[in-house]
């Protein structure tokens, strides 16, 4: 009941015209970002962070904008999957399987409509799960001491490669680069400067917002420059919706299953939305069996992954908000934003920044309704936007990035730094080093170090304190599993995923 009261307060925050406007703008931009192939949700949120700073938004509005973008990107990914057979982002990969065949059969409009409904159902289920689970987990988090937190961060790093990760070595390299960058600046447990070389600007360490925007947004621009000006995709004719109510109702069980499975996959560290949509799709195939026509344009083959990835999107917010450990790349970016707004995620946030947390959660519910409205009647707009050449979009992105970063600190030093990160990001992407582990290393590295130090101070230097409590021991075990399982199960899963998709998906 207490939760309901908080949620009502959250609605009061989210329903102010000002915040509602930004939720709508975020939903729209998010869908657009999602449907443009190559621009994933993590990039999308990273690109819009500077916008929040440029406009000088208050914390709750900034977070509402960014979570709406996040939810929107999950909706948008399906558009290009269905129309072009190119997933707009990684979680939308599975939607290609039945979405594109449906479009080829002339049912593109139906596929888009039903997938919007499925996204809505998944998002709704995920958000309800978030509302129920987050406060409980937040209270539970109070029992976490430094040793437990240290084990939790180990768990986060161990599962980083995730089940879908391609090259574990490159993930390790990326995470290490992130941790190395994070050691620059004052070391709070000794009070000494590390790797600052007397440069005042480095004394407070490297701002991760700057690193994120550089790595994602600026490197995107460089990639674009390299490929020169590409023309937009050719315009696809969508046709009319012929979906019947009966068909819609028949997919309800699929939507529920997909949403719940997706949510669970989202909550688990390191799994994220891609796994959510994959599991939902495979399970659906198992449940329906031979009766379905999966792979040839079965409507449930569109519904399951879409419900799954939207459920996972909300699920991934649970560990981020309650423990400060992000469950996916995009939530890592959102975490960076929270920290730079001077809000510390964790149990305290649910009481001290209740307006922000519950405002964001309420905005997620409202955002899903807005997105459903945007994505069914207005789908034509996005289809048309899909054919805009990137030549018009990227200069805007770059401008916003520069203005935004400058407006945070008014320092040209930071701008140079951001460009340097962009160039580094470009080369790392060329080398296929994933960028998300860098961000996670940057964010979680100092926390891990700090908690290790604290645990040892509390135990007067006794290392066994790290696995002394049952909770810590449990976390270590899960971390061990997280490290070993992908090596065993990963190749099998990946082979299945690949064999399911003929065309190599564009991933990031």
């Amino acid at each position, binding site marked *: 009941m207490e939760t309901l009261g908080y949620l009502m307060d959250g609605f009061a925050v989210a329903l102010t015209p000002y915040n509602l406007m930004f939720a709508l703008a975020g939903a729209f931009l998010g869908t657009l970002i999602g449907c443009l192939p190559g621009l994933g949700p993590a990039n999308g949120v990273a690109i819009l962070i500077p916008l929040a700073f440029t406009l000088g938004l208050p914390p709750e509005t900034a977070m509402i904008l960014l979570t709406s973008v996040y939810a929107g990107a999950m909706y948008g990914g399906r558009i290009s999957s269905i129309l072009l057979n190119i997933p707009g982002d990684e979680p939308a990969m599975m939607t290609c399987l039945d979405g594109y065949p449906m479009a080829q059969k002339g049912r593109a409009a139906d596929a888009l409509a039903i997938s919007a409904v499925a996204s809505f159902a998944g998002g709704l289920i995920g958000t309800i799960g978030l509302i129920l689970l987050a406060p409980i987990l937040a209270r539970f988090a109070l029992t976490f*001491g430094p040793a437990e937190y240290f084990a939790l961060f180990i768990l986060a790093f161990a599962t980083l490669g995730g089940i879908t990760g391609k090259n574990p070595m490159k993930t390790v390299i990326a995470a290490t680069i992130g941790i190395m960058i994070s050691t620059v600046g004052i070391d*709070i447990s000794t009070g000494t400067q590390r790797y600052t070389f007397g440069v005042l600007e480095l004394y407070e360490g490297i701002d991760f917002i700057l690193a994120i925007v550089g790595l994602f947004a600026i490197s995107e621009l460089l990639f674009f420059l390299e490929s020169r000006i590409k023309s937009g995709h050719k315009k696809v004719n969508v046709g009319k919706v012929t979906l019947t109510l009966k068909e819609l109702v028949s997919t309800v069980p699929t939507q529920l299953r997909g949403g719940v499975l997706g949510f669970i996959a989202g909550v688990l560290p390191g799994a994220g939305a891609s796994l959510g949509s994959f599991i939902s799709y495979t399970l659906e195939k198992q449940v329906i069996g031979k009766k379905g026509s999966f792979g040839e344009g079965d409507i449930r083959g569109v519904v399951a992954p879409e419900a799954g990835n939207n459920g996972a999107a909300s699920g991934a917010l649970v560990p981020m908000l309650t423990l400060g450990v992000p469950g996916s790349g995009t939530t890592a970016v959102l975490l960076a934003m929270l920290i730079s707004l001077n809000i510390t995620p964790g149990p*305290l946030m649910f*009481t001290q920044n209740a307006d922000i947390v519950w405002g964001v959660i309420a905005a997620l519910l409202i955002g899903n309704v807005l997105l459903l409205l945007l994505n069914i009647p207005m789908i034509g707009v996005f289809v048309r936007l899909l054919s805009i050449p990137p030549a018009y979009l990227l200069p805007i992105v770059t401008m916003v990035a520069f203005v935004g970063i400058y407006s945070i*600190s008014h320092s040209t030093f930071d701008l140079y730094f951001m460009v340097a990160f962009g160039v580094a990001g470009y080369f790392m992407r060329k080398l296929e080093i994933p960028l998300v582990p860098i961000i996670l290393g940057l964010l979680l590295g100092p926390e891990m170090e700090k908690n290790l130090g604290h645990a040892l101070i509390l135990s007067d230097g006794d290392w066994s304190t790290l696995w002394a409590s049952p909770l810590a021991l449990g976390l270590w075990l899960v971390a061990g599993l997280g490290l070993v399982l992908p090596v065993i199960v990963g190749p099998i899963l990946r082979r299945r995923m690949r064999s399911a998709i003929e065309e190599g998906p564009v991933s990031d």
Partner: protein
Amino acid sequence: MFIKRTLTFAAAAAFSMTAMAWQPSGKVECLAPADPGGGWDFTCRSVGNVMQTLQLVEGTVQTVNMAGAGGGVAYAHTVSKRNKDDKLLVAASTATTTRLAQKQFPGLDADMVTWVGALGADYGIIAVGKDSRYKDLKELFEASKANPRAVKFAGGSARGGWDHLKVLIAAKAAGLDKLPSIPYLSYNNGGEAMTQVVGGQVDAFTGDISEATGFMESGDLRVLAVLSDERLPGKFSNIPTAKEQGIDAMGPNWRGFYMPKGASDEAKKYWVEAIDTLYASDQWKQVMKSNGLIPFHPDADKFESFVQQQVQDIAELSREIGLMK
């Protein structure tokens, strides 16, 4: 050509300004050495507003944020680039004096600027969780005296930062000699540190009274002592001071300003008086009340020496715990 003309113009403007009886004309700049949203930013914005209401300034007071090195970037900027600026105020607090004392701004000293005045303070506290066995500050430090590692403290500043120093100031006043052995756990902010104390992982919390209000009112945190001269006003009046308990320790985290050393004497005089007027006004009292600031305002001529004294004390303490040589 253009540059030359601008320079001539600027010189002429500067000349005409010093020639008259001094009063700020046009835009006044208040430099907040941190990102928007923090304490220094608040100092600039609220003082700027009240100054405009009281018509202490003719035009507007513009807050400019210049984050970096815990105020070091702004300090270096003021000393090296704005040393003759008459219309520049820079927000400062105990965090500034701490870093100056510990030589964390390379090549910069406390006497390179002019300290204008303080406008209130946030006082240090030492608190424990509600189930803690320590009932007062004396008991807590008795335990520390028997074994310096017995009581572990958590705070929101780095080791050697203000939250850590408050523990050391109090411990020293309580007669402890093994200061470096007292365990201190540093967190990113006071809230995080408090969570650990409330959760029972760490014994005691060191921070400012304003941070602790939430947990204090919910009953999760028991404040053993406030490090002030007298009991604090209002809802804090039932918290005993350390002094009452026989431990003569003070820990005010003041908020105030410094300005460029090279500014004209007229300008310096003007701003010192302006801060006095502002501090006495009802509007400022309202700001203090709604933001949990507690009265703290050394006399105009004493603030400079107060700052120098604080810098010396902190330097001495930092040497004692081996943080600097």
